[in-house]
């Protein structure tokens, strides 16, 4: 786009004022140019006031090296980093793998599958907060539905799910999967649907079974999309505040925080905003490479998707 605009710019003085061809190739003139700029003003204002300013302000807030010394020596922060890595590795991969498998299930013909899909996407439509406080109560060791059910069905006393670090973290990951797997399944389902049926038919003639056609057709064709989704899911999950905040509340004893929730805790509960910003900014070494790769990939994948 930029190169064609530059070419039009070079050619501009030579052409007639009323040439349509150049008008549409970037040669906007007079009032039309003014309008084009005016249409951009709202977004530019939003971008400068609510993206550039907070980002610069945040970078400035978290720029004192002493903050990081304080941060890294905090045992809660060290645990938080471990939690974030665990959450990312299991959350992203389980979610996308399940989504990939389930999108295959939803490709089955018949109205039963369509009905199941309608039910299955329900968690995506429910706002996070009602869903997560319900899960929080459900996991209560004494009165929660889960332990009641375990007792009624198997006659065993379930553990206090939210009173141990690992069970609580696992619960948070499962809650995240509950809420967000449908969303990624729908995207992968759309990806699968865009693969022409003829390829599968041709493979069937050659004797390929379900597993073969998945390994040699579906996966290679969805590979790029799957990679982009992995990167996107990584970033979205890194910024996921609601799951841990409502399901575990960072507890027990601040052992299940993620960087996003720890940042808010340091800034508001501890009254130290700079430390909160520093906690969040310590994710930048992971985020920047992901964002760079993602920005390149998104541009190419968008049209294919």
């Amino acid at each position, binding site marked *: 786009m930029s190169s064609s*605009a530059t070419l039009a*710019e070079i050619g501009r003085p030579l052409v007639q004022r009323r040439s*349509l061809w150049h008008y549409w190739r*970037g040669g*906007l003139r007079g009032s*039309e140019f003014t*309008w*084009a*700029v005016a*249409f951009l003003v*709202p*977004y530019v204002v*939003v*971008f400068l006031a*609510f*993206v550039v300013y*907070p*980002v610069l*302000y*945040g970078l400035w*807030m978290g720029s004192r090296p002493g903050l990081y010394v304080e941060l890294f020596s905090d045992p809660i922060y060290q645990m938080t980093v471990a939690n974030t890595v665990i959450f990312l590795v299991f959350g992203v991969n389980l979610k996308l793998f399940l989504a990939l498998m*389930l999108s295959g*299930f939803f490709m*089955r013909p018949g109205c*039963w*599958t369509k009905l*199941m899909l*309608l*039910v*299955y*996407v*329900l968690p995506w*439509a429910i*706002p996070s*907060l*009602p869903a997560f*406080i*319900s*899960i929080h*109560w459900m996991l209560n060791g004494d*009165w929660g*539905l*889960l332990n*009641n059910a375990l007792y009624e069905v198997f006659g065993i006393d379930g553990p206090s799910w939210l009173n141990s670090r690992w069970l609580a973290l696992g619960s948070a990951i499962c809650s995240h999967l*509950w809420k967000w797997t449908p969303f990624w399944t*729908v995207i992968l389902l*759309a990806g699968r649907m865009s693969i022409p049926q003829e390829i599968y038919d041709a493979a069937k003639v050659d004797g390929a079974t379900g597993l073969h056609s998945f390994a040699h057709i579906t996966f290679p064709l969805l590979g790029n999309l799957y990679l*982009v989704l992995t990167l*996107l899911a990584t*970033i979205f999950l890194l910024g*996921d*505040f609601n799951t841990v*905040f409502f399901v575990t509340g960072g507890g027990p004893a601040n052992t299940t925080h993620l960087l996003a929730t720890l*940042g*808010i805790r340091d800034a508001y509960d501890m009254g130290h905003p700079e430390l909160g*910003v520093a906690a*969040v900014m310590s994710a930048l070494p992971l985020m920047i490479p992901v*964002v760079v790769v993602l920005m390149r990939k998104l541009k190419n994948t*968008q049209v294919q*998707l």
Partner: protein
Amino acid sequence: MSITITRPPMPAQTLRPTQRLRRAARRRRVFGHIGAGIVSAIILLWTFTPIYNMIMVALEPKGDVFTTTLFPARPSVESFWIVLSQGFWYLEFFWHQFGNSVYIATMVTLLVLLIGSLTSFSIGRMRIRNGWLITNAALLTYVIPASFLAIPFYLIMQHYGLNNNPWSVISALVTFATPYAIFIFQEYGRSIPLELDESARIDGASPVQIYLKVYLPLMAPALVAVGTYAMLLAWNEYLYQFLLLSSKQSMTVPVALAQFTNSDVAPWNYMMATAIIYALPPIATYYMFRRKMTAGLTIGGIKG
């Protein structure tokens, strides 16, 4: 002249393998059905457990919340009535707070559609020079997690004097939803021929007229998809509303609701009833516009 295709007679020895293949296919189909049944059962159980829990607790009458049964012994819809009639002290501003949520979601949806469509019209249809710079800026915003900007955002809202004002939340949500709108609109706009704008221009239409009379009507499906997305985003969001709205009059339903998870005497049945009522509008919207939204996801970007 007609062409007739006659099937060559099938040799006798190939019949047996065909039969075997057919039997194998039938067996696979049966296994497939059993597998689908198991997967369906797991999906139903998995999806409905938290929802069932929500409904069950909401149906419990006062005092029965701390029980160990799977179904309320004396189910009643009392909690819903208490919420709707604001009959409990923490629910005293329920309808006002619900109104705040509706106001914020409506404003976010309208502004996202307006700003997003104007930007995409200027870049994608009028082809303003260096428009790709703005596309890239939007792309970058799209991949910044909103929760990472919350602290500086909260502080600059004080600079702007928007503390405890719904417009602070609206501006935050517009900031994070517009990039998605710009992508969808640009991708969708590619399918609309530029010649339409061109012929309108020859007929003497100004850019504003082209935008209103040619661009917007043709973009209707994308507008619905993005509008639904923006509305659900606003309804789903908690962190910014929690940080930026602190008084009972200005806060939204989720903020009021979350305040009570921390209190010692949390009335769980009322809270779940509130949660269900709060979850109904987005569910209705979602199922109404589900197809359009899925189409939106497949046109362009992806946002959770």
